[in-house]
């Protein structure tokens, strides 16, 4: 079999399994877990698209997620707009923030982008608490309408968005565009010498990444039916980064595997409630040391090679 076909078959199999799982087990609990996993999948894929490909790590992805979720929350409750406006609004809000953060920082080499994103997310979380008259403070915004009433259909919709996100971003990553982004990770100066507008590519990829993160944030707001400042927390970003690292950097599909794996693991570790974030942080340190290539993508590559009949 050809490698491409095996990849497609694997993707189809995984997708159908995820789609029918709630039908087989018929539990709202499982459906909730899978919905969250799919949303985390969207976030991880969007993180991997910018940071995995260009090697500019974004420590404040939660900024885009939170902004998207709050945009959805405001639109739906304060202004009473139809819930379906939330997705484009979330994307747009995140894009605005991506431009504000990206234009000053991505022109530069060095760690400025990573740190500025971290600062941005921390400060936004503080602002949500400080301006509690407008944002609801610690409580956040409550009473958001569901996007789709039936949890099963909503789950399928989220899954569909995950597939769409992955197809779009994965396609972009394999195109000439993605090649340029990977080249920037390899050697920025050479790219510049070859006449590429490096800054433009970096900012554009951040904008695309932010748009999907913001959309994921809006989906999350309509799943939880409320938003809180906790969305902006650094741990949200770290959770996503850990998922991508577990999945395997810059593979796009690996990020989904990481998101699924870690979300399910979290549910199994539910009894350890308070220890969850500790486990994540320690897992991240261990992965950085012992599995820099990640877990999901290398495993899949091995399986694929086995199926292809030992061909490299």
């Amino acid at each position, binding site marked *: 079999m050809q490698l491409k076909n095996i990849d497609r078959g694997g993707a189809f199999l995984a997708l159908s399994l995820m789609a029918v799982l709630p039908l087989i087990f018929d539990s709202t609990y499982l459906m909730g877990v899978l919905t969250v996993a799919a949303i985390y999948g969207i976030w991880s894929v969007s993180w991997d698209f910018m940071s995995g490909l260009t090697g500019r*790590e974004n420590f404040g992805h939660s900024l885009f997620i939170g902004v998207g979720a709050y945009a959805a929350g405001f639109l739906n409750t304060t202004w009473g707009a139809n819930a379906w406006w939330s997705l484009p609004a979330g994307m747009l809000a995140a894009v605005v923030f991506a431009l504000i953060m990206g234009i000053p920082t991505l022109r530069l080499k060095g760690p400025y982008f990573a740190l500025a994103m971290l600062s941005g997310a921390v400060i936004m979380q503080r602002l949500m608490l400080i301006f509690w008259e407008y944002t609801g403070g610690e409580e956040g915004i409550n009473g958001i309408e569901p996007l789709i009433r039936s949890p099963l259909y909503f789950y399928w919709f989220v899954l569909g968005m995950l597939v769409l996100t992955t197809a779009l971003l994965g396609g972009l990553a394999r195109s000439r565009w993605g090649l340029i982004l990977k080249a920037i990770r390899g050697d920025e100066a050479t790219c510049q010498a070859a006449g590429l507008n490096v800054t433009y590519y970096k900012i554009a990829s951040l904008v695309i990444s932010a748009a999907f993160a913001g959309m994921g944030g809006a989906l999350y707001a309509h799943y939880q039916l409320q938003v809180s400042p906790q969305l902006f927390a650094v741990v949200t970003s770290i959770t996503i980064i850990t998922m991508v690292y577990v999945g395997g950097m810059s593979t796009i599909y690996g990020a989904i595997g990481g998101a699924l794996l870690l979300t399910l693991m979290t549910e199994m570790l539910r009894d350890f409630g308070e220890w969850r974030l500790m486990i994540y942080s320690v897992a991240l340190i261990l992965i950085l040391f012992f599995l820099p290539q990640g877990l999901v993508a290398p495993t899949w590559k091995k399986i694929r090679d086995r199926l292809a009949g030992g061909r490299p």
Partner: protein
Amino acid sequence: MLEILIFGAVTSAIYAMLAVGFTLIFGVARILNLAHGSFYALGAYGAYVLTTLFNVPLIVAAPLVVIGVALFGMVVERVLIRPMRKSQLAVLMISLAISLVVEQALFLTFGSEYRNVPSFIEQKYVIGGVDVAGQRLLTLLVSVVSIGGLYLFIQKTRLGSAILAISQDPEAAQYMGIPSDRIFGVVMAMSAGLAALAGIMAGPFLSVQPSMHLLPIVKAFAIVVVGGLGSIPGSIVAALMLGYAETLVAYGISTSWTEIVSVAATLLMLVLRPAGFFGKRAAF
């Protein structure tokens, strides 16, 4: 007016203690340490544990905590950061992960409630009609003395010259037989100790809870961007600028807007002059 002058100075003093350590370890070892805020948090919590739970007098507890956190910083550098030093991003990742481990450890042991760190001086003083807590004045003094001491140490001692040499040219320094790995450990310990001292001094009038390490990192980063990465005079000047800017905003507009100052300053500076005010010069 005098109020702004005094409170701005105190805020700047704390920021300077944080930013000098942060910029020092970057200037010397090229380590951007996102766990820097954790040292600050550990300083405050260390003082709390020793004084409240073990009834150690603060004057004894403070040096113990500073030394303990300095050793912790050394261990972290040796075990976790050094193997990752090849890649700056890996250092950022690992130090951020460390800071979260510390945060979670504090959360799991002490819970998320605010803790009270005792003051050295409970008394209040009146300066030109302004009420100032003695602790704040002492913080100002401690900051000036500790940063001054650090500066003298770097300028006057043999070890200080070695640190300076590495920051100017790491390879040449190594050819001259300076054991750079060992120096990094020492610098990390000094940087961590200074942050812990800031935590002990600022603990009584700031909120001490597990996620307290995040804002100091944001402030230190803003200061270091404005002052220039790796420059100690730059970070002192920038700490004064940020401290006074925040105080002015607090008095002139509203305390709500103070938090925006640091991020706005960072972004503006990166647009106008990315190297910072003192960026092009040598580290000291």
